């Protein structure tokens, strides 16, 4: 088990190297490189050259890349050209928000998706089945940011049930420890702060959950339908087991395998969606920050973000593989 984890983490290194090299070369080849971002469109050629020299941009690209990697090893991702602060600091401040939002979305998607998919399979061909299949099709086809808008317009601006933006009401003056606002509230026993942070997560959480929810419903349904036809379910029935035992022990557990895999693959979707959702709800997470960075051509931030995404993606899928081996004894990690 331990060796498996170590090997997977080691595999991450060449991926990161390849990815960063590719991005690095690409970035440097672009017209109007980083100096444009700093100077803007004006700036005399002399000033440009000055900046290029001071940033080491006049050296051979591999030398530059070597320097980049050396800094990377020291966890230095450079300075954001728009906020002038260290990219790592910016991320540490904002990443917790995105994690909270993603977890909320995943809890919603899994909590509703698995039971709904299961019920749809059990009631195949009936109204609930048609509704959830149709609903999940539409869920996949709705642009996330549009759904976010609609939710915000209806439930925040018109009905006023939920806050329309931000992560927490700043007038509460909540104490910050980890920057996970809900966690902070619980740790400091500032219950109202925790509740308020949770309240802020509901609408963006639902918007972000829409696509994963749709996918989980479909995969659960398909998987349960397949397992229901398996011989071992018939064996369980032939043993006279109660319906509850047959469903819980034999059907549900076996049908979870593809669902768990898909949850891992959806990390990417969640982070994509976070960029859109956070922008709509002015939710100060990493997504909104990156959306801004795109407009500002803030390359250090984009670069750092893509690297972080790659690490998160690999880690989550490592977790998925590990949990897979707990569900299915046939998959024993070596």
């Amino acid at each position, binding site marked *: 088990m331990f060796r498996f984890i170590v090997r997977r983490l080691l595999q991450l290194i060449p991926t990161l190297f390849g990815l960063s090299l590719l991005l690095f070369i690409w970035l440097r080849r672009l017209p109007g490189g980083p100096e444009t971002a700093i100077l803007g469109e004006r700036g005399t050629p002399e000033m440009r050259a000055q900046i290029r020299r001071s940033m080491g941009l006049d050296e051979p690209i591999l030398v530059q890349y070597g320097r980049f990697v050396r800094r990377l090893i020291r966890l230095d991702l450079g300075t954001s050209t728009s906020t002038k602060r260290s990219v790592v600091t910016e991320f540490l401040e904002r990443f917790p928000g995105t994690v909270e939002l993603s977890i909320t979305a995943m809890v919603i998607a899994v909590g509703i998706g698995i039971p709904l998919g299961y019920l749809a399979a059990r009631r195949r061909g009936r109204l609930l089945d048609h509704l959830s299949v149709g609903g999940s099709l539409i869920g996949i*086809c709705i642009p996330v940011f549009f759904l976010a808008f609609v939710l915000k317009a209806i439930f925040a601006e018109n009905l006023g049930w939920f806050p329309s933006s931000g992560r927490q009401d700043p007038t509460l003056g909540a104490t910050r420890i980890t920057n996970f606002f809900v966690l902070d509230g619980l740790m400091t026993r500032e219950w109202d702060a925790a509740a308020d942070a949770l309240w802020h997560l509901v609408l963006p959480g639902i918007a972000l959950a829409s696509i994963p929810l749709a996918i989980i419903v479909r995969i659960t349904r398909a998987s349960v339908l397949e397992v229901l036809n398996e011989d071992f379910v018939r064996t369980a029935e032939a043993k006279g087991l109660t319906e509850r035992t047959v469903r819980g022990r034999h059907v549900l557990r076996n049908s979870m395998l593809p669902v768990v895999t898909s949850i891992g693959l959806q990390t990417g979707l969640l982070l*994509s969606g976070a960029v859109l959702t956070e922008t709509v709800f002015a939710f100060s997470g990493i997504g909104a920050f990156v959306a801004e960075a795109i407009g500002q051509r803030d390359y250090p931030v984009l670069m750092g973000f893509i690297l972080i995404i790659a690490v998160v993606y690999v880690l989550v899928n490592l977790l998925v593989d590990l949990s897979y081996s707990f569900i299915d004894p046939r998959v024993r990690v070596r």
Partner: protein
Amino acid sequence: MTISPSKKKEKIDRLAETAARDDERGVSLWQEAFRRLRRNPAAIIGTVILALFVLVALVGPLLVPHAPDAQLWKGEVRLGDFPGPRAENWFGTDQLGRDEFSRMIVGARQTLLVGIVATLIGLAVGSLIGGVAGAAAGLGGRWGRAIDNVLMRFIDMLLAMPSLLLAISIAALLGAGLTTVMIAVGVVSVPVFARLLRGSMIAQSNSDYVLAATSLGVKKPKIALTHVVPNSLAPVIVQATLTLATAIIEAAALSFLGLGNNDASIPEWGVMLADAQPYLDSAPRLAILPAVAIIITALGFTLLGEAMREALDPKLRK
């Protein structure tokens, strides 16, 4: 019983005959799939939606009542109050006093164009990489495996990137614009096509009938052309249909982030939806119309794609 003996015998013989014919008649994969598609209501709905969409995209721009970029009713536009639906503007006008109906119709063409070009980019590049990797893996040998390995590691790297973020970074680097959106969304779908084609090519070349053909002495390139490629095509075509749906949605998301089409004279649904954000309260139709159009179109592609997948799935065939 009134049937005469000879009639009875005829009946049996006929029965035996049809049974034998049924056995021999090899119904082709595609014919069978098409037959099953026609019986699937989802496929029919999807096809109808797409037929309408394509028709509007092709013919619509020739018939629209007003030029989509002419600000004909600019004088009537007040802050937070635009002309609503009426006889001369069926869907009202937008924030710049342009006819929303004409913009929707012309926008269909742009949206279709983005979707198709993006999918074609993904399909072409993905199939090329996947096809080379699949062929290399099929030929085996040290070099074959090496080529396959390098290509697939590259594809894995692309796959590890969340699709929209990949598109965002490409778009961020190439600058905003229609071409950027098409390339970005296309590149995002490359890994899917590559893995799909490679996977099914490897599965095909390990199949019994390819083994049979090989043992009969058929040359490898011929097997690849006559057996492996045609049989690997089905999942790729299905995927292309599904990708059209995601391409349209992702293009809209890129437009929303300000990376989309920046040429205001050419309306496109994603851009229209993004531009309508400030007017959600005063003129929600400006957002709802393009959003609904995007959703329905994506739904059409998804329905048809899913139905095709089902129809071509050998597991579901009787």
